[in-house]
């Protein structure tokens, strides 16, 4: 396009000149002279051409191309500058792209169901004064009125998570994740089975037929994709189920691992008695969320009457978007991480603006020359902006590359942390948005110094720029930038510090037992063959006998849950006849075989542990921890012999306290105020004294663990334990082996993740602040070399000179740190939900951060200042 334009331009000019030359020749001039006259008449040929080129519609493309080439040349000329800026940008954009990929998945991406905006989840919303709380768990007593009266929504009840079960089919054994869903679950989501059908309301009732819907993947794997699989039987956890449907390939629920779905069979007892259900709802055509909520509010009145809720608290069912519901408990965390990443990007931009500002000082002579030669101010700004944008795009590109690797590295852990439906990956939308962010950053950090530098006083710039003596005003601006960087940096480092302290506090709480040389393994007993106390305890006894026979085993026991795990929560109705307020009646409940306390070496404070004599026929006994005594029996002189009645039933069912043990750490199961790990009121009862009904209920969603204490290292222990269990029951595989250390790691995985993420961001912030201070001092040292040289020549001592060079950086940093600390006092409150064991104003953290950053400031200032040691005054003065 442009080439053709150029050719025609040339042809037209040539015609004119030739014609003019011919005319002069006709007048009698010699050809040489004629040509000269013609050119003279024409005037500046290239200038005219240039003006005409400006009128060409595609002119801007060429201009940009030229500006880019020029900018590239400028960037290549100062590689240190270019590399610094590109690295800063790459790190900031990389971190932001990675975090934004999470934000995108959690908040923005549509769920993979038809018409996802009409999909809702019912939440219980509690209000008291201006306090409110939202919970997603539902029970049969909230489901029933919704099913019968909420006519504006199409709803279905289901169980939120999935549980592992053993699947046997065609001689194939597999441990798969099973989710229980109510009739209509798939219809409400809007996904029909690929083959077959889903459960009908008539089937989804207690005592209904055992049916199963399979995932596409499982169907392909086990039945090779044979459509005839529908109607066949499979053995799930020891019971036979009939396959009625196969779901499409991409289908996923909020339990991404689930491969089999079975009817929920909602009932007022069992799972339905607690908050173990969730309710899915789709707004019916023409109904909006407000209308649905109005109807739910009227239904809520009948619900409130069914629950014991404290005075002054109101409860209401509310439809919230499914997207929100699925991510309810991670939204705040993701927002905080996003804010942290945004902050570091801001610091990065300020840093680059500072560097560009400094560069503009050294370039002011070049720019002043261009302006003096008639370059339009707009063109010069445009050129400087082009450089910034080129940097922004290159840096952004590098950032994307970095983000790709970050996502690769943190994919598994992030998917688990945020309960994401799909693995994290860079998608087009994220990249597009982050490109826009990079560009915006480029314009912002580029425009500010560009305007600054083109507003120069030409005369003084041309006179002084060579010496670099100009720009004290600019120096001040740069100081402001560094000050702001340090301030924001402190906020990030304090945040990371608080989260790190949280993690270390949690890791260093005395667990209350001896964790060394203990191996644990869990086993799902959600099996039709373990429905009675007799069968279950026989399995425990026989398997423990086998395990005890392994050489090197000191002791072994079975317990429902272990330290650092989440325990079953039950309510205490009364203790020795004294009722316990419902709101405070929660305890952790664990069954254990005799020998459990000995195996973990939990210290006995009073009374005794269980023995084999505490069997099904003996009086019911319990061992409790000190926390239970402190909470429920604080003023009882002799807690031993007190009777805990869990269900408020017959007196014979009450548990007599026979022993009190040291507190051990558990993962919290209720109430956020206890922290992720806490010493909670807890009851241990002998496994032999549970009822058949207890086992049937508990085995549905919890798997007991085998605990083994060894004498030192036992080679091949896992294999030997597997064999021990298989010798008792060949169809029971252990699902996983863990040391207590691993359980602890698992319990604080979330805190570790937060601490790691914030530390990475804070580390970046420290690096940027260091660069900022370094750059500032390096610049001032370079500018004041002459002054320092004169001072040295006049007899000043080197260390005085260095102090003079370093002091501004340190003063500035201290001011920034002080400001940042004050700001952090407010910012830390936002982190409150992530902090545990320390206060958001934790003095240790604040003091450590301030000290760390002062050291960073001193180092960053000293490095450039130490160059003054090598300063030769005579040389400096001669250079002038």
């Amino acid at each position, binding site marked *: 396009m442009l080439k053709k334009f150029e050719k025609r331009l040339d042809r037209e000019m040539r015609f004119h000149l030739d014609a003019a030359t011919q005319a002069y020749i006709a007048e009698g001039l010699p050809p040489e002279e004629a040509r000269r006259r013609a050119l003279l008449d*024409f005037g500046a040929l290239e200038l005219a051409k240039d003006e005409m080129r400006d*009128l060409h519609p595609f002119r801007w493309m060429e201009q940009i191309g030229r500006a880019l080439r020029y900018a590239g040349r400028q960037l290549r000329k100062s590689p240190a500058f270019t590399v610094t800026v590109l690295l800063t940008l790459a790190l900031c954009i990389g971190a932001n792209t990675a975090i934004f990929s999470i934000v995108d998945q959690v908040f923005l991406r549509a769920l993979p169901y038809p018409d996802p905006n009409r999909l809702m989840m019912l939440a219980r919303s509690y209000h008291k004064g201006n306090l409110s709380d939202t919970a997603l768990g539902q029970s049969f007593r909230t489901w029933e009125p919704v099913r019968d009266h909420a006519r504006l929504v199409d709803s279905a009840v289901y169980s939120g998570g999935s549980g592992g079960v053993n699947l046997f089919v065609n001689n194939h054994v597999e441990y798969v994740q099973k989710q229980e869903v109510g009739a209509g679950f798939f219809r409400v989501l809007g996904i029909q089975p690929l083959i077959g059908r889903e459960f009908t309301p008539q089937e989804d009732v207690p005592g209904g037929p055992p049916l199963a819907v399979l995932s596409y993947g499982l169907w392909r794997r086990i039945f090779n994709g044979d459509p005839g699989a529908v109607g066949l039987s499979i053995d799930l956890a020891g019971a036979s189920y009939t396959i009625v449907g196969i779901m499409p390939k991409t289908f996923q629920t909020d339990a991404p691992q689930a491969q089999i779905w079975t009817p929920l069979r909602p009932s007022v007892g069992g799972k339905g008695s607690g908050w173990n259900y969730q309710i899915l709802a789709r707004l019916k055509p023409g109904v909006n969320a407000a209308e649905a909520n109005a109807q739910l509010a009227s239904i809520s009145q009948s619900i409130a009457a069914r629950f014991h809720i404290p005075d002054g608290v109101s409860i209401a069912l509310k439809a919230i978007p499914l997207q929100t519901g699925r991510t309810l408990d991670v939204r705040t965390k993701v927002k905080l991480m996003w804010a942290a990443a945004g902050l570091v990007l801001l610091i990065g931009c300020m840093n680059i603006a500072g560097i560009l500002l400094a560069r503009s000082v050294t370039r002011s002579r070049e720019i002043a020359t261009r302006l003096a030669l008639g370059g*339009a101010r707009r063109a010069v700004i445009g050129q400087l902006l082009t450089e910034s944008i080129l940097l922004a795009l290159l840096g952004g590109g590098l950032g994307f590359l970095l983000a790709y690797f970050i996502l690769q590295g943190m994919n598994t852990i992030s998917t688990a942390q945020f309960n994401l439906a799909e693995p994290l990956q860079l998608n087009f939308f994220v990249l597009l948005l982050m490109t826009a962010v990079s560009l915006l950053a480029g314009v912002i950090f580029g425009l500010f110094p560009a305007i600054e530098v083109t*507003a120069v*006083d030409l005369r003084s710039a041309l006179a002084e720029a060579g010496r670099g003596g100009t720009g004290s005003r600019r120096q001040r601006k740069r100081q402001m930038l560094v000050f702001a960087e340090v301030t924001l940096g402190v906020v990030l480092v304090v945040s990371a510090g608080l989260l790190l302290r949280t993690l270390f506090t949690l890791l260093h709480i005395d667990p209350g037992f001896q964790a060394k040389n203990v191996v644990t393994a869990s086993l799902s007993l959600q099996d039709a063959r373990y429905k009675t106390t007799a069968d279950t305890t026989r399995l425990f006894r026989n398997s423990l006998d086998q395990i005890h026979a392994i050489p090197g085993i000191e002791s072994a026991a079975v317990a429902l849950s272990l330290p650092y795990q989440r325990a079953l929560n039950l309510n205490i109705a009364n203790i020795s006849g004294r009722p316990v307020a419902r709101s405070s009646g929660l305890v952790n409940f664990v069954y254990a075989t005799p020998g459990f306390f000995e195996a973990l070496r939990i210290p006995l404070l009073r009374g005794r542990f269980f023995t084999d004599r505490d069997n099904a026929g003996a009086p019911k006994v319990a061992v409790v921890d000190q926390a239970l005594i402190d909470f429920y029996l604080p003023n009882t002189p002799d807690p031993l012999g007190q009777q805990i009645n869990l269900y408020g039933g017959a007196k014979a069912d009450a548990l007599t306290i026979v022993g009190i043990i040291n507190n051990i750490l558990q993962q919290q199961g209720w109430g956020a105020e206890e922290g992720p790990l806490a010493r909670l009121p807890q009851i241990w009862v002998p496994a032999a004294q549970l009822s058949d009904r207890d086992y049937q209920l508990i085995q549905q969603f919890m798997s007991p663990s085998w605990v083994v204490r060894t004498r030192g290292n036992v080679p091949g222990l896992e294999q030997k334990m597997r064999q021990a269990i298989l010798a008792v029951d060949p169809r029971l595989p252990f699902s996983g082996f863990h040391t207590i250390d691993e359980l602890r790691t698992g319990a604080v995985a979330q805190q570790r993740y937060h601490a790691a993420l914030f530390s990475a961001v804070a580390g970046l912030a420290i690096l940027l602040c260091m660069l900022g201070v370094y750059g500032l001092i390096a610049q001032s040292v370079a500018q004041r070399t002459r002054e320092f040289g004169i001072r040295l020549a006049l007899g000043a001592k080197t260390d005085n000179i260095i102090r003079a060079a370093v002091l501004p950086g340190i003063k500035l940093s201290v001011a920034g740190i002080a400001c940042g600390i004050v700001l952090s006092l407010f910012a830390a409150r936002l982190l409150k939900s992530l902090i545990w064991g320390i206060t958001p104003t934790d003095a240790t953290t604040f003091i450590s951060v301030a000290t760390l950053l002062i050291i960073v400031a001193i180092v960053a200032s000293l490095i450039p200042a130490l160059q003054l040691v090598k300063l030769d005054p005579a040389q400096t003065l001669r250079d002038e």
Partner: protein
Amino acid sequence: MARHEREQPEAELLQGTLDLLILKVLALEPLHGYGIAQRLKQITRDALQIRQGSLYPALYRLEKRGYLKATWKTVAGRDAKFYALTKAGERQLEHESAGWERLSAVVRLVLETAK
């Protein structure tokens, strides 16, 4: 000294005048650039010093605005770009001539009154 201004109001006026002259010349017949320059020289009897080079940007500008239409023709075995007035160009010429008449009348009036 601090700022660097490039806009010069006189240049604007001159440019407008050149545009008017070009339109006037082309109203008679289509011509190529050299022809226009020659014709302007003739008409103004060399009174107006126009660098021939500055003629072309004006031609391109007028073409871009749609007042002129260009066609390539062969003159004495060479390609030359001929410019012709469009309908819009004719209207513009009328419009500018009227404006110019008024302006010169005003200037004349001022000069006479000031005498």
